[in-house]
């Protein structure tokens, strides 16, 4: 994990950022985006808290057979369970590894408990600690301070978490260092061609991860004109300035959900709980649903449109607000 606030490395980063800003059209296929930015042994962060999880990106990384990745995610969820079973990862940085609302993530447990298919190094935080690492990375701060960890064995389990004295004399406080993933892949409702991205619903940690990461791929349900973004600037979570590639990825977060577009496909989460208890069954599933199909569009065809019609919520529209024209 590279700290971005040593001047040279920071300069590289920001000049790079300037180049990002230059591209006026960053539209790309998921295959191209993954091939361009996710290389063996790099650190990858596919974020989104229970929703907005780019399964399309995770499956493409498996399909391109990346190896030695450091996977970063607060709640690994099914997608990292699948990527770890496929042997893409060497290390996992996380804060809660469970099948949300269902149970265990058996592939990750097999990797940790039995080194199957390969050993998996763990680096572990609480939620706020990992959010803090993203926030420090996003603001080029040398650390993030939080009141957690005092009295917890997590301090001993992770030497990157330190206790320092509050300079104002109120006692000990924990700090965590910045985290700057090599690549972030973030799913949202809409973006324009420059990567200006709007998200509503659970904001999670998407903003902090985007600003913390050296490369950012945004995957969205809809590509919209820049004028749509500019019509509600308070909703823009990620500016195109820091985005490398924009992927049009409808239903790309399935089986997780996208607020207002589709619901979580809970049957898939329950099915995974059973299926994933045997490594062989997982490999068979990967052969059929990842290796066996060329891309996410094929995955959607395989599931069929009716499948997604059932996941569509009724509309619930937010009232408009008036920004006013000042001229």
């Amino acid at each position: 994990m590279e700290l971005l606030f040593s001047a040279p490395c920071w300069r590289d980063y920001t000049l790079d950022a300037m180049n990002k800003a230059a591209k006026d059209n960053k539209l790309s296929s998921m295959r191209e985006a993954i091939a361009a930015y996710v290389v063996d042994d790099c650190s990858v962060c596919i974020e989104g808290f229970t929703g907005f999880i780019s399964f399309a990106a995770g499956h493409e990384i498996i399909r391109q057979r990346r190896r030695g990745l450091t996977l970063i995610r607060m709640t690994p969820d099914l997608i990292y369970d699948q990527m770890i079973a496929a042997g893409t990862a060497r290390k996992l940085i996380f804060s809660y590894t469970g099948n949300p609302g269902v149970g265990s993530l058996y592939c990750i447990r097999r990797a940790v408990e039995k080194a199957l298919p390969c050993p998996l190094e763990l680096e572990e935080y609480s939620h706020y600690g990992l959010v803090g690492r993203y926030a420090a990375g996003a603001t080029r701060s040398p650390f993030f301070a939080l009141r957690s960890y005092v009295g917890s064995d997590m301090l001993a389990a992770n030497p990157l978490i330190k206790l320092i004295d509050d300079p104002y004399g109120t006692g000990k406080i924990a700090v965590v260092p910045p985290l700057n993933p090599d690549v972030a892949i973030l799913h949202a409702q809409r973006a324009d061609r420059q990567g200006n991205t709007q998200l509503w619903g659970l904001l999670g940690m998407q903003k902090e991860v985007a600003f913390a990461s050296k490369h950012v791929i945004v995957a969205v349900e809809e590509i919209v004109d820049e004028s749509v973004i500019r019509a509600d600037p308070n909703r823009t979570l990620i500016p195109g300035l820091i985005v490398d590639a924009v992927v049009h990825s409808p239903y790309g977060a399935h089986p997780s959900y996208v607020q207002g577009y589709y619901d979580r496909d809970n049957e898939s989460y329950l099915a995974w709980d059973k299926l994933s208890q045997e490594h062989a069954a997982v490999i068979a599933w990967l052969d059929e649903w990842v290796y066996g199909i060329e891309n996410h569009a094929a995955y959607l065809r395989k599931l069929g449109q009716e499948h997604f019609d059932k996941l569509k919520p009724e509309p619930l529209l937010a009232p408009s607000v008036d920004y006013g024209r000042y001229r």
Partner: protein
Amino acid sequence: MSEPTYTESEMMIAVAARMLEGARTVFVGVGLPNIACNLARYTVAPDMELIYESGVYGARPERLPLSIGDPTLVSGAISVVSMADLFGLYLQRGLVEIALLGGAQIDRYGNLNSTVIGAYAKPKTRLPGSGGACEIATNAQRTFMIMRLKRRAFVDKLDFITSPGHLTGGDSRARLGLPGGGPELVITDKAILNFANPEREMQLTAVYPGVTREDVQAEVGWPLRLAETIQETAAPTAEELRLIREEVDPHAMYR
């Protein structure tokens, strides 16, 4: 009319709901604690607003949420914020009145383990880890545990302290400057335990109908301290059962 029959889960839900009387902000997970909060809204805590670590304040779910990040928690909520703001502005700020927590293991001082069974480096069982539990246990004004009473869970020594309770007892928590008040109650399927003594040691304070002190001790891995008086908790009322079965968990997802 005859005594209504009920399940252990229904009893836990009814008891947990009663303990939330007057609560205004409750930090909650999914499943049984969520049902208990919804029941409390109908009964003893009409002003209660639910806070979820996913970034939701004042949720009004139209269905039982499948996870703490369920989209039904977002639609119709008072405010939905980033997780940095939820943990910073709400939880660490001290605005969470009561937090409901669970874990794989608990010790006599209410410290919780949700990280590993066995050695951390070479775990026998890898558990999910802290999630928000460490900060919840640190910052919430009051913490209630909801756990089934099992000898493998109520242990003499934790394999790993994920979330600090009363640490080594007495004023050890205050001495380390933890802002929250720490564990107050443990609500189980057989009895209620609290920490209302100077040593902040878990003690039996109430048993459910038909449960003996011996039944409780049999599921606790250390000699369990007894409160001066031990009450018998009232069974769920017909109205509590009706609300659980018809209003808050009509599909019996958590019973």
